[in-house]
């Protein structure tokens, strides 16, 4: 038996842990691009801000897309609800609320992540320290995940937590792709400029897939392969297909436990089959941007349906 409010807390706790990690990864990719490109880096930082989904809030506060402004906004700024600091704070508040549903190890890993990041992000980050800070964020979230997978019972508590993780991750990956969908379009890929090479690498870096890509495909970046990797490849842990494989699995476990199915099961299944049988050619033919917009919309709807049917509120 699980309280609706607790299921809600678990779901959002995990969404925010995932978000904190993805935010660090985005900044990491931006940093890398800024370091390797000779041209003005502000274009890259602009796209980092858009991928993070906080372009409006950023524009209200800053006019320049500089490394210092962007990293401060995405890592430290508590007025930005999706910054790493805000995300960890929200994750911990939720964890405290659902404390009884967590193992001591899981709670302590979240509490310790909060304590150490709070200290680390208390002051503006010196650019020389940025790589170390990004590492620390990824390490803390990895420790949380380790404690979670290692100690939690595989029951409904686990299912709702995983739903949060994968709904958030699918949203993140889809947004990163959507922000740069134009650099993946076939018409532009024919140009084959070095500019595109950088852009493609940046996409892969944002999801920590630049090395694994080479093992799975080829040493050269091909837009259709990149899109295939991040959308349809069921072995790539940040791809949409991968996320939906687990969303469907955990929703199924819940319906078996509870003996009832809801609209969210159908929504998840529809998306899952689409990703399972689809080909990247079909997606490109129908329009990548349209596909991604629809996906983001359906993914959001799924989140709402889960909240409604499992009585989160």
């Amino acid at each position, binding site marked *: *038996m699980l*309280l609706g*409010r607790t299921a809600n807390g678990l779901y959002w706790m995990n969404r925010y842990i995932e978000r904190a990690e993805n935010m660090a990864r985005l900044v990491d990719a931006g940093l890398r691009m800024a370091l390797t490109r000779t041209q003005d880096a502000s274009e890259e930082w602009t796209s980092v801000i858009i991928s993070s989904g906080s372009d409006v809030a950023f524009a209200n506060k800053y006019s320049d897309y500089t490394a210092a402004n962007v990293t401060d906004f995405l890592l430290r700024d508590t007025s930005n609800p999706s910054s790493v600091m805000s995300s960890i704070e929200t994750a911990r508040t939720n964890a*405290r609320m659902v*404390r009884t549903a967590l193992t001591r190890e899981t709670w302590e890993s979240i*509490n310790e992540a909060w*304590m150490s990041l709070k200290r680390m992000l208390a002051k503006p980050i010196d650019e020389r320290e940025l790589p170390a800070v990004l590492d620390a964020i990824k390490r803390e979230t990895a420790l949380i995940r380790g404690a979670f997978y290692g100690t939690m019972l595989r029951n*409904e508590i686990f299912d709702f937590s995983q739903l949060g993780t994968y709904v958030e991750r699918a949203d993140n990956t889809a947004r990163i792709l959507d922000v740069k969908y134009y650099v993946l379009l076939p018409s532009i890929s024919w140009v084959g400029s070095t500019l595109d090479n950088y852009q493609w690498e940046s996409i892969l870096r944002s999801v920590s897939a630049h090395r694994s890509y080479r093992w799975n495909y080829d040493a050269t970046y091909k837009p259709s392969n990149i899109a295939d990797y991040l959308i349809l490849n069921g072995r790539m842990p940040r791809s949409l297909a991968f996320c939906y494989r687990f969303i469907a699995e955990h929703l199924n476990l819940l319906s078996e436990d509870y003996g009832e199915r809801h609209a969210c099961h159908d929504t998840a299944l529809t998306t899952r089959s689409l990703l399972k049988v689809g080909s990247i050619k079909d997606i490109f033919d129908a329009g990548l941007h349209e596909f991604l917009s629809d996906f983001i919309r359906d993914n959001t709807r799924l989140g709402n349906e889960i909240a409604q049917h*499992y009585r989160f509120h």
Partner: protein
Amino acid sequence: MAAFDEMLPEVSGLRKPYTAYDRWLKEQDPARLAQKMQDAERVFRKTGITFAVYGEQEASERLIPFDIVPRIISGQEWRRLTQGIEQRVQALNAFLDDIYHRQEILRAGRVPKDLIARNEAFLPEMIGVRPPAGVYTHIIGIDIVRTSENEFYVLEDNARTPSGVSYMLENRETMMQLFPELFQQIKVRPVENYAQLLRQSLAAVKPEGAKDAPTIAVLTPGSYNSAYFEHAFLADQMGVQLVEGQDLRVVDGHVAMRTTEGYKQIDVLYRRVDDAFLDPLTFNPDSTLGVAGIMDVYRAGNITIANAPGTGIADDKAIYSYMPEIVEFYTGRKAILGNVPTWRCSEPDSLKYVLEHIHELVIKEVHGSGGYGMLVGPAASKKECETFAAKLSSKPSNYIAQPTLALSTVPIMTEKGLAPRHVDLRPYVLVSDRIQLVPGGLTRVALKEGSLVVNSSQGGGTKDTWVLDD
């Protein structure tokens, strides 16, 4: 007057319960002990054993300082305390039952009628209501102080929602982590079964119609409450749901919680929400912390609320001064554990005495708690005494006064070694069809030299409390 030290009294030297500990302590390297003190703080922070201090934004989560020197009680001392506590708890429940039914004690003139009728803690809604299994106060904390080898007094009864038991449990966990060897050398009676006892005790007072394995839940005001850690801790340790008002509603004459599979009935609610907020339909209409209609369910006998609404009438400081009479009235025997002599300022002669001796006395607000709104005469300046005297004279019935007791001390570990500090003791008592105590309780210690205020909100700390298995 020098205070009685429980480890090293001036007159007789090292006391017996501390012999083995003292031997161990003398073998320890001071640097190692200093390191252990830091380890202890780290353990508490990481576990999140914090409490909120209201009105202090910055320090919204603070630790209660923990001292590594245990407070040790011999088995024999504990047996004597237990008898006194059991007697007192029995009387408290009998008093509550009487006060909400026939009011024999008022008719007998042993407690003045006025004290009940005009008391905010008395709930007319409870008149004639008999809680499941006839138990009113299920979880009680009795604050006890010691002044010499053989003198113990009850300072206060906590019959509403006593807190602090999680510290008792975590203090022991921490001590066992820090000094495992100590527990092999010295046989200390365990406390870790408290949560199991609590769950069994709550299950034993389930409503008559409830199923054999009743559904129990802990009701918390929420994660911003100062004692939230404890609420979560106890629910977790018992293996029951931790609910908030927003999770609950009345469904088909029962209180039910909103789960992912719909509403599920609750049979026993261990509530950590004050009476006033329990039911907006009966008490404070603005409350969002309680459950609308729970009092109707309660009166229909369909839920156990622990502790029962209205138990505050038994631990009110004005009632406290009548406890010796109350104990004798219901148990037919003299109270084994004495009260601290108390002047009721509502009585003109007492008021006169208190005003004349204000610099010698501790004066407390009748309804206050947490060490707020009190004056410690000997520690107060002349001006503070005068200001307080004015407050006292304007509303005498709001105050009681007690002599400044020479509370016993137990050493704490400081940078310069052991140093005596004043302590009190709060044993926790569980009442169902029987009365149960875990050996020991929570020892609170005033960390400031000479201070008598042990409250955590006022710079107090805690110690692990050992009852020896001797």
